[in-house]
């Protein structure tokens, strides 16, 4: 995979991880709030 493509893919995957962190993070926050 060319370096440029790898960079594009890595940036996209990083941002996707950030989104998932917010998704599960807020559900986790709500669970902690619950207990």
């Amino acid at each position: 995979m060319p370096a440029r493509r790898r960079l594009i893919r890595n940036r996209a995957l990083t941002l996707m991880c950030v989104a998932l962190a917010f998704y599960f993070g807020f559900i986790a926050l709500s669970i902690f709030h619950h207990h």
Partner: protein
Amino acid sequence: MAQDLAHDASQEHGLDASHDHADHAPTGIKRWLFSTNHKDIGTMYLVFSLIMFFIGGSMAMVIRAELYEPGLQLVDPERFNQMTTMHALVMIFGAVMPAFVGLANWMVPLQIGAPDMALPRMNNLSFWLLPFAFTLLLGTFFMPGGAPAAGWTMYPPLVLQTGDAMPMLIFAVHLMGASSIMGAINIIVTMMNMRAPGMNLLKMPLFCWSWLITAYLLIAVMPVLAGAVTMLLTDHFFGTSFFNAAGGGDPLMFEHVFWFFGHPEVYIMILPAFGIISEILPTFARKPLFGATSMIYAIASIAFLSFIVWGHHMFVDGMPMAAQLFFMMSTMLIAVPTGVKVFNWTATLWRGSISFEPPMLFALAFLFLFSIGGFSGLMLALVPVDFQYNNTYFVVAHFHYVLVPGAIFAIMGAVYYWLPKWTGHMYNMALAKWHFWLSAIFVNVLFFPQHFLGLAGMPRRIPDYAVQFTDWNRVSSIGGFVFGASQILFVILIVQCVRGGKRASAAVWDGALPTGLEWTLPSPPPFHTFTVAPEIK
């Protein structure tokens, strides 16, 4: 002729560049279904948004018709609540957001000198999720129990009374969220990786900058909305009690999570509009944007502040005094960067050589009318005052001022600005001016009286009202009908412009001062552009 040559040249470059998708325009349904071309996907977003604008608008017409006089005329209260809920969902997620994403798809690669978006297949998926999401959402109208009716904010416990529509609503919101997140990732990666050599970040046009910041907001908050509705889903179907007090949960919790999403969401709907206005005003004032760098810092400050003001949506819900003070003051703080922006726009006009083409008319109307919405927002930020205004038509007047002559006028201004670039034809100027003046006058007839109704105590989201509210409701409804009807002119104009008309030059606005890479391309630009990166001085 010159255009054909440019077209051929770019096709040749397309062949030897590292494109692994089709290098010539495919035809028929496949062109649209399997499109990886940013221009085609941008067009699909914009057309989709226009359709949703009319579907959401028709619901607004039902609302205004019912409120034309007191008593129940057209719809029963349940159907009325479905109308307000679906109007909001369709307009926010179906009309305004896809319009901005469509504009970004079309313009970001052209403005930064990129051949396409960084992730073209994901771009296709981002768009094609939307028709499915809205088929699900609008399909709920035909289900037993009808469409969701608990308001677009979906507060529990009320929303848990939604019938069969509930899982459809939640899945639709998930799909819209996934679409937005993928769109945002695409925009960020495109701007970070695909800029032409020499195009450093601070050289990016303001429209790109506003979208870059908006995309970060989207990635941070759309998952929060998805999390909130997922918890509603598990509360409703799987016996959890996140928001159920009987099970030890807390319904207020939903409001906190929802507005942590919801407030950045309202900036997601206005920051790209700020970017558009910052493109249009300098062109037709024939002066560079005043304080361009401070504009970027202002947008970034507004974006940051949007994360710490959510509590102002919940002042009357019961909140410690310290929290009320914090949210009040952080909210008022937003007036500072917003003031910087309005000052800079005004200073751009100062001693400018101004002409009043349709995009400029919409931008100027934005400047005045969005500011009215901003000022009523400041009023609502004040805790003691909000106790009085909360849940009245004053709130409705406020957010419609920032969203209609704010976001939607900016979108229309952008369409009038770039439509000749997209189609290669000039549009009917007289018709555009008719559209502008009818819209600008009647948007005020529609929404300004709602301030009076709210201050006099008329609650929002009701199908019937006390008789003393009749007069201003009639004025508002008449304004709504004319505003709604005048949007048909917009469609006629676009269809005419796509079909033909006077040829547009590459710079389109030759007499004015259009700046940016998009104006160096022929109008319409060839299917593939910047397959060889342009050199930026």
